[in-house]
């Protein structure tokens, strides 16, 4: 593990909307690379040693929670699991995720967006008899394959990369966005959710919903959890187009 140390050049977007008179700008920082260094480590290093005002969000720093998505050299990705050694020329340009309210520097407000999304698509199990279930009794059975399929679609960590990567979403504010379709598809295949196709149509059957998707596939290509956006949006589109 003895590589030659090199100096990394970070070009970082800086802007604090809370601060009167502050203007968006790019600032360059230099960091000595260490073996195994991730952008998480580097940014903390910059904050501790060079600029304590630098804002960014990390929570799990393990690629699990989705807090740290930002645009790394033109690619929206989870910064915590991005090794600096990946960048051969040692130049790393960091921008906050576009399409979200900017909190400051690299930190954006994805929380209110995803809460609104969940409310809009009613991201919960719909079953009018749910409250009558007796939890002392055996749970309702589920086919093991169906359970696995649902899990595969539920792996979204609400990082927002697919929202930022979608030009449709960015042009049209009311467009639901890929994470929303993914969540809805997850409920659509869940036998516990008793919503009918008509009811799903009420949620996404318009140009702000699935018919507004122009199949740009930025979502598919940049989702850090590799969720199957293309097939799921197609699945919903077909399902919704068939509704009478």
């Amino acid at each position: 593990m003895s590589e030659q140390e090199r100096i990394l050049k970070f070009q970082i977007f800086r802007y604090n909307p809370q601060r009167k008179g502050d203007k968006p700008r790019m600032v360059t920082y230099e960091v000595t690379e260490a073996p195994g260094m991730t952008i998480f480590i580097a940014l903390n290093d910059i904050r501790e040693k060079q600029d304590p005002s630098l804002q960014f969000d990390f929570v799990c720093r393990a690629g699990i929670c989705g807090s740290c998505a930002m645009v790394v050299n033109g690619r929206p990705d989870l910064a915590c699991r991005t090794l600096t050694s990946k960048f051969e020329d040692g130049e790393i340009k960091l921008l906050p995720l576009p399409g979200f309210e900017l909190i400051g520097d690299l930190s954006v407000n994805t929380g209110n967006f995803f809460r609104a999304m969940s409310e809009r698509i009613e991201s919960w199990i719909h079953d009018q008899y749910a409250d009558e279930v007796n939890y002392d009794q055996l749970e309702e059975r589920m086919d093991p394959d169906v359970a696995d399929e649902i899990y595969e679609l539920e792996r979204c960590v609400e990082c927002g990369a697919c929202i930022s990567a979608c030009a449709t979403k960015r042009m049209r504010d009311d467009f639901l966005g890929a994470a929303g379709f993914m969540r809805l598809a997850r409920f659509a295949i869940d036998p516990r959710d008793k919503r009918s196709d008509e009811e799903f149509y009420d949620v996404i059957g318009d140009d702000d919903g699935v018919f507004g998707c122009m199949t740009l596939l930025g979502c598919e290509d940049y989702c850090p959890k590799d969720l199957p956006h293309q097939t799921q949006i197609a699945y919903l589109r077909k399902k919704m187009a068939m509704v009478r």
Partner: protein
Amino acid sequence: MESYIIESNKKKSRLPARLDLAQSGTGLILGLFMWVHMLLVGSIIFGKAAFNFVAKTMELAFLSDTGHGYPIAVFFAVSTIFTLFIIHALLGMRKFPINWKQHRIMRDQMQMMNHTDTNLWYIQAVTGFIMFFAGSVHLYIMLTNPASIGPYMSADRVVSGNMWPLYLILLICVELHGGIGLYRLCMKWGWFTGKDARKSREKLKKLKNRLTIFFLTLGILALLVFVVIGIKHRDKVGEKYEKLSAVVEQVDIKERV
């Protein structure tokens, strides 16, 4: 007594679904039509006779005793395509950036991410926009001169009618637009997904690129042939191609038999 208003269960409009289907349907028909169209027009590469044969067949010449055909058939074909073309264009334009701000966002996004499929869409929008004008001109001419299709008259139109720049632009636009459009259709509706959707996508993209290159080459060759014929025929603009070679061919065939 209190009065109650019973709200009828308002059904959410199914229009967006229908329009989306219409957009894809017209796109699909136009896309497939254009492949056929290019193959037909491409027949000029194999000679005036071949092209003439194709043109006459399109005029349903095989149904008439005289062999002159019914240009009205072409007229109807063009009307149909023209209608689809307009419907498709109108549906497509809904997706365009509606104002400068949206356009700026789109460009900004493309610059920041440089994402292939997003760029492809932009190409589609731009080519669609161009085709709306260029294609309309072509279709209008075809609509109004249904009987004017033939090796000489077409070539004259290309050269002496100064249509070649328009055709060149139209050709590039339609091949890019149609190829991307058909690929997008597969993605959009999940066709040809196979076992591994991601691998299939790569394959389809490759196929799309190859087809676009093939049809562009075909189109450019055809256009060149038209230009050559047109230049040679510059002095005799308006002269119709006589079935001379067609007769010869028939003789040929008889001889062989």
